[in-house]
């Protein structure tokens, strides 16, 4: 092959390659414009603010409401009980101060559970809610290993109770966690725990759209010193606390 032929064929190969590459590039652009449209559809980013100073120690209204609304299994054995929402009592090492903290799925912006799920059964919705597809979960429990907040629970046993017939219960063998009552939120309602807390008169839990700067939750987060649990992990939780 002489030099001219070589240059010619090289040129051909390069132009052919670049033409071939053009196609996926343009289809990528199309896909991303579709994504934008989708993003506009869900302008919400749901978050929660829990004011620990207003949470009264003996009150369990939110816990009961959550369990009833979502048919969360309670077997009476701490090894296998499922808690989408749970209260822990803390004591500060230095000051000796005691407080109760409400714990639930943090609906992380970077959820490690969704990252590790081998079947994409755990995923983050566009409105930020981290949710489990219980028809897809294979029960490998890798998400429980990856969750740094111990917020995920496995159905070790069949759940005998089914108080809320409007919402499914889960079979044994799948993992579950708080989903901000997505089924209620989608209908414009508040999560069951928030409603119950309001009814009890404490009003310690605020739920709202973090994308909207004028929402109650965004303004309160901007005005008050808030904390999230283990922010150092880079998971960007969307559950904020006052008084932690």
């Amino acid at each position, binding site marked *: 092959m002489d030099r001219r032929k070589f240059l010619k064929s090289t040129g051909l190969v390069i132009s052919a390659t670049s033409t071939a590459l053009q196609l996926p590039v343009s289809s990528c652009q199309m896909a991303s414009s579709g994504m934008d449209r989708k993003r506009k559809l869900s302008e919400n980013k749901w978050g929660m603010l829990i004011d620990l100073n207003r949470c009264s120690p003996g009150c369990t209204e939110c816990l009961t409401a959550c369990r009833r609304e979502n048919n969360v299994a309670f077997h009476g054995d701490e090894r*296998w009980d499922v808690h989408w929402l749970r209260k822990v009592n*803390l004591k500060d090492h230095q000051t000796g101060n005691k407080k109760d903290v409400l714990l639930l799925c943090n609906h992380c912006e970077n959820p490690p559970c969704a990252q590790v*799920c081998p079947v994409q059964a755990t995923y983050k919705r566009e409105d930020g809610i981290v949710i489990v597809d219980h028809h897809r979960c*294979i*029960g490998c429990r890798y998400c429980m290993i990856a969750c740094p907040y*111990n917020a995920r629970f496995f159905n070790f046993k*069949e759940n005998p109770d089914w108080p809320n017939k409007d919402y499914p219960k889960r079979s*044994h063998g799948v993992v579950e966690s708080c989903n901000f009552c997505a089924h209620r939120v989608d209908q414009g309602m508040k999560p069951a725990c928030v409603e119950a807390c309001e009814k009890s008169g404490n009003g310690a839990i605020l739920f709202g759209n973090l994308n909207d700067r004028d929402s109650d939750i965004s303004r309160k987060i901007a005005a008050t010193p808030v904390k999230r*649990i283990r922010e150092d*992990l880079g998971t960007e939780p969307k559950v904020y606390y006052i008084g932690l």
Partner: protein
Amino acid sequence: MEVKFAKIEAKSPAYFIAMAVLALLALAGVYSTYQMHVHGLYLSGMTNRVPWGVQISMAIFYIGLSAGSLVVSGLYGIFGKLEYKPFARIAAYLAMLFLIAGLLSILTDQGRVDRVFVKPFTYFNLSSMFSINPSLYSGHIMICIIYLWALFREKGRLTKIASLTVCLWAIGTHTGTGAIFAFVPRELYNSSLLPPSFVAAALSSGAALMILVMVALFRLTKRYLDPSLVIWLGRRLLAVFLLCALYVMLIENAHRYYLAESHEAGYYFLFGGFHSFLFWIGLIFVGSVVPAVLLFIRRTGESIPWLVFSASLVVIGVLCERFLIVVPGLTHAPDLFPGMEVTGTVVPEGIVTYSISFMEMLQALGVFGVIGFLFLAGLKYMPLAPTKALANNAVSAVTESELRPSASVA
């Protein structure tokens, strides 16, 4: 030198008893897995705080074992060391079986076994180590089959290519397996040294097991095995792998213990409970230091009974190590509220314990039963085992009858 392979006769009562026991174990495993599938995994010793237990530990133990077998097989396959040709087939077959055992252990541990065969393929998640690894494992098994076929058909070139591919693939497989743990934000898991440490321990346990299998096999079938081959495997291969594994593990723990941010977790691992006993006695003393010394001393390192003893210790040590990878990282809780103490809770928040249940044990034994059965059946129906193994080609001129019985496996 022509190496001859032959099926084993398998007519002794011992063979049939062994097959029957293994089949019973396998059935017990099927029974317990069925029970768990119907009634739930509460029948295992696992809890919401320790969601992985024996089966995952055994899975990574088996997967690790396959590496060492492949390396022994690769001595002939890749490096053309003719004296190791007798081991090549059986090592490749074992590597395949161990991978199957690993996959079976993972499979039987799932909450919804019925979904495992479809969902991971239709909803593949590239960012999940649990998605990537099964692809690595199944690829591994496929290459092992091709490799075995090449060995059976004496395809020189294909043997070399398949052997090299499967050894490189094995590094991927074992790094991936280590990454299942290393790539999650848990204090005792999250360490970039875990994958290399996993590979090192895999190689040492695999080489040790090969020594045990080869010596036992040749002895039970009354075939001749040149001691110098086993001595080389022990004093060269196993010893090097063992020291590498020990080294990486020491660095990993020292680093964790030294840094203030992980000191508490490091302390828990080293001195925090029963698992610490497994670490110091099972892994460090029995599984590493004693065999290392025994291999180093010429008198014990060159005696077959001592070599077998050392190899058994290494396998026990790595079994402890696998358990130590999985369980302490879970029983040690992530510290959600630094500087504060949890005084009341509905789920155990602090350090918890894990105990193995009988049903879980049956599952683990069941997997052993399955691969043990397949191994013995393989020996009977495939020409896996060589009729003899000699270190020096020149010795092949000597007929078997001329070899003193005392020179065979001691």
